[in-house]
């Protein structure tokens, strides 16, 4: 999420190249993290696969849109998503797990599952599948348009609408962002938006970070980390809007 502003504002890279490199970083994060801890058994592969229909179609639409609208317009949308993410990460995330297994769509698609807790395997029910699916379509469009993982919209869909346990939504969303980004990365690659020399250091850095990050993260205070993150992205959002208005992005 910070790769695009970092490259575009920090290093003066053209926005299209920055978005291409960012898509690579999203895939590296997803695949790197999944390769680092797959054995935990929280990912709900059915939820992921079903929602990926929405995210991949959205991603293709977003990638298509990216070729049609100006970089200033993309920067403004980007800033709005940054601000929303800052607001979301400054608030405590509320878990609404339910054992209500009655949602008809969730039943017919066999989305309800179980996850490991200290008290053994707990069943969880999935709610409002149609709302979640629609939000995922939006997440896909933003991902294809901006080259991001759209984690913030996915949290909204999976935690708030579908009521998944955190451990399930986090790992399932990680599975989905890689697949979603791969859908738009194909389009970006063929359009010539992915530059190898710009993207390979991003990829290697992110992979190393994904493998090491899991260890460092356990020793920091998430509260402080979230605050720093919020301040940084608000600043980036303001800078992006300023540059969009100036027409220098």
């Amino acid at each position: 999420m910070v790769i695009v502003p970092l490259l575009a504002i920090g290093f003066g890279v053209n926005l299209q190249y920055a978005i291409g490199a960012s898509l690579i970083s999203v895939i590296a994060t997803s695949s790197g993290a999944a390769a680092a801890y797959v054995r935990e058994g929280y990912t709900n592969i059915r939820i992921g696969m079903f929602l990926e229909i929405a995210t991949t179609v959205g991603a293709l639409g977003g990638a298509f849109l990216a070729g049609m609208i100006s970089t200033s317009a993309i920067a403004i949308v980007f800033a709005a998503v940054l601000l929303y993410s800052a607001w979301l990460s400054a608030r405590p995330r509320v878990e609404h797990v339910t054992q209500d297994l009655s949602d008809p769509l969730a039943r017919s698609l066999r989305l309800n599952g179980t996850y490991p807790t200290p008290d053994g395997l707990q069943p969880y029910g999935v709610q409002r599948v149609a709302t979640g699916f629609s939000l995922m379509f939006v997440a896909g469009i933003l991902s294809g348009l901006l080259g991001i993982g759209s984690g913030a919209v996915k949290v909204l869909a999976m935690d708030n609408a579908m009521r998944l346990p955190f451990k399930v939504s986090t790992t399932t969303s990680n599975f989905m962002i890689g697949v979603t980004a791969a859908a738009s990365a194909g389009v970006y690659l063929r359009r010539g938006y992915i530059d190898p020399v710009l993207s390979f250091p991003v990829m290697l850095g992110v992979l190393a970070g994904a493998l090491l990050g899991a260890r460092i993260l356990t020793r920091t205070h998430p509260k402080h980390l979230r605050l720093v993150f919020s301040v940084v992205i608000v600043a980036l959002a303001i800078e992006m809007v300023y540059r969009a208005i100036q027409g220098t992005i």
Partner: protein
Amino acid sequence: MVRWDDAKVQRAVGSVLRFGVLTAAFVAAVGGALFLAQHGGEPVHYAVFRGEPPELSSLVGILRGSLHLEPRALTQLGLLLLIATPVARVALSLVGFLMERDRKYQVITLVVLLILLGSLVGRI
């Protein structure tokens, strides 16, 4: 025949992911190192978008360049392998759902796989 379930499919997927990510990183690192060895001292120009040439933006071009050990094509091949890891993940899930004889999810997974392959070879 061994019975397949979601957990077993996920373990197989994990091994493939690790292998794919490491291969992609290795290929991109070799290509990148070759490029930097030849052009590392030159200034870069990313402020203006020009688009990559066909040798670096089509599958055929990238593969052809990689066979000739062209550094940027090889680096791009590494990125392409990385893009392929989630696609492989979906393809393996399809195998899993075939083994589980889950008809509904065979169709869902096939749709996702076709979208992904279409984006790589299509003409949008």
